[in-house]
């Protein structure tokens, strides 16, 4: 007889599997205050900079929840999707892939922008007369934040009241030492750990 998924851990699923956009947004732990204050200015731009796996997309999605009329676009490598003409602020994930023409057009509009990017556009945006705030995606990432983020993922997969596995600060420290700010790689490592887990215990 098939049992319910991960019920032996009082969870609904492996907490470190891929999430839907809605799940990722709901579970994001991001300090948005400074960015939101900055976005109150006309023509303002917030750019979230960071390497792969640092949490740029999570930052963008967390900011998006504060704006009912936002427009979000992710630019996959090698593709040129159209930039949405409606919605504000305009969120562009992987903005370093904007073509020169798209960049010129987007930076010169009056729409507020939130960019997730590997490349720093500060100079170009200043030339376009935009007030800009640069946020490093990993600016607050340390052992404690890793500990909080990973345990929040486990909590989000909770099945019922009662005990669930917990990630210890020692594990969080080890992961931070091994992967630095690369949260995605930590999640992949924890996926394997939870796949092996058979009892509710500290990890």
């Amino acid at each position, binding site marked *: 007889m098939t*049992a319910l998924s991960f019920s032996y851990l009082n969870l609904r699923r492996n907490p470190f599997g891929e999430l839907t956009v809605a799940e990722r947004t709901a579970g994001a732990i991001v300090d948005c205050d400074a960015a939101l204050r900055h976005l109150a200015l006309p023509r303002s731009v917030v750019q979230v900079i960071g390497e792969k796996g640092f949490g740029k997309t999570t930052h963008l999605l967390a900011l998006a929840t504060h704006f009912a009329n936002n427009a979000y676009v992710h630019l*996959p490598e090698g593709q040129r999707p159209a930039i949405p003409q409606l919605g504000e602020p305009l969120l562009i994930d992987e903005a370093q892939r904007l073509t020169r023409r798209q960049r010129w057009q987007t930076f010169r509009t009056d729409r507020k922008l939130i960019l997730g990017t590997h490349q720093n556009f500060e100079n170009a945006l200043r030339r376009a007369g935009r007030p800009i705030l640069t946020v490093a995606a990993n600016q607050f990432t340390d052992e404690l934040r890793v500990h909080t983020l990973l345990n929040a993922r486990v909590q989000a997969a909770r099945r019922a009241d009662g005990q669930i596995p917990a990630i210890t600060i020692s594990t969080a420290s080890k992961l931070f030492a091994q992967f630095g700010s690369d949260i995605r790689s930590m999640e992949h490592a924890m996926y394997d750990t939870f796949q092996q887990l058979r009892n509710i215990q500290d990890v």
Partner: protein
Amino acid sequence: MSKCDLQIKFDREDRTYAGGETVTGRVYIRINNSMKSNGVTLTHQWRTHGRGNVSGGTKETVELEDARSYSPGEELEFSFSLRSPTYPVTYHGTMLNVDHYVSVEVNVPWAFDPKAEEDYVLVPGEPPAHFVGSRNEIIALTPAAGQSSTPPNIILAILSMMFSLAFFLLIKGPSRFCKNVLAGRLGEVKLSTPHVVVAPGEQWTARIQFQPRKRFRINSIGVTLLGEESATSGSGTKTTTHTHKIWEQKLVVRSNDILTAGELVSEEFTFVLPTTAAFSLDLMDNTIQWRATVRIDMPLFPDWSQAQHIQIVPESFLRNLTDGPPMTSPDNTASFLGTPHTSLAPVCASESLESDEEEESSESATQKMLSDFLQLVATMNAAPRHGNARGHLVSNAADQIFEAAILIDRVTSSMGASVKYPGYEYGKTVTGTIDGTDQAIQVNTLESQNNGIDDLRRGDIWQTQLTLIDWDSLYNRINARQIDENAG
């Protein structure tokens, strides 16, 4: 405290339903604060979770209540009744999982919508309505997809075409050359598989046939059955595919041998498929694939190999399928020439000199065992072709010893393949029909009898004592083993 508490309870304690059954339960809502709602909706959907991007089926939504206002302390109860899908069934693997969910949501204007979700277990039941056809070819079993995080687009398709062209030029060119070289040595290699749509626990057989053009040595002729989960995360060129082997089984039917030019090589591989819940699944970013790869391994020469995809489906899904035609008989005329001769191992061939009376008694016992067997075969043929009736008849007679006369079709080496009994592992496998009937039979013979069995030719009548092992529903065939007359 949230505006309301939501709870979903299924009518069945174990939350287990078969495909096509009605899933029933109740939704309980307790209002904590006064609130207005735009309605209460119940949603039914399957989704994947695990390493790959989330795929999901079409959401089926039911309105439980219209817009209204609620007062604190109010308690509401709704019953629900939903028809479960037939596919995909619940699966909990390593890289991917499939689960079925019922969720309830109270639509509160301008506020966070209170929501509850519960999963249930869907086990195989009715076959999907569109799952019809023949067991000889893979049948598309793609469930209606609702969401996926990575929709394809035209640029990706163009890139994929360009990649395919480059792949063809760089890989296929040398591969074509390799194929020609192999054909020059092996001739045309025919791989025949009677069925590719199969159920767990079923016996699956493939046959390879070729007539070498040259004399050469082989390391082995074998087959590998592989079941694999595959989950893809990310999108565009940032995709990562994670794979996990569910099952790997290797079977070698011939090793360290020399093949002679012009002599027909005909080998049969028989697997008992694992009793697994990992049914074949083909979603955009999440798949479970089964394939058998037959390989001829030759020293200092490229290997010949061919993969055959197998679609493993729940047994109940086979109900609406037509059986494939039986595997064509091998053209063994080249290697099995000669006039048919009679039994090489006469039954109860007692070498001792016994009295006429004892001989008569022995002969009559033999006749009785022969007639018992023919009677069993007649009963089996009268039983329905589908279902378990024939299997049960064989199981019930498993302890008895029968006398059988078999019209030989072919003899192959067992090579340890799926033979559980000591003394038989490296014996022979004799395939044919019970003399005077159309009933197919396969007999595992004793290793100690190899010399005698090797002399059997196609068309010979071979008489032996045997006991039944099981019924092979795939080939409509009795599996039996020769009795060790010297034992005990």
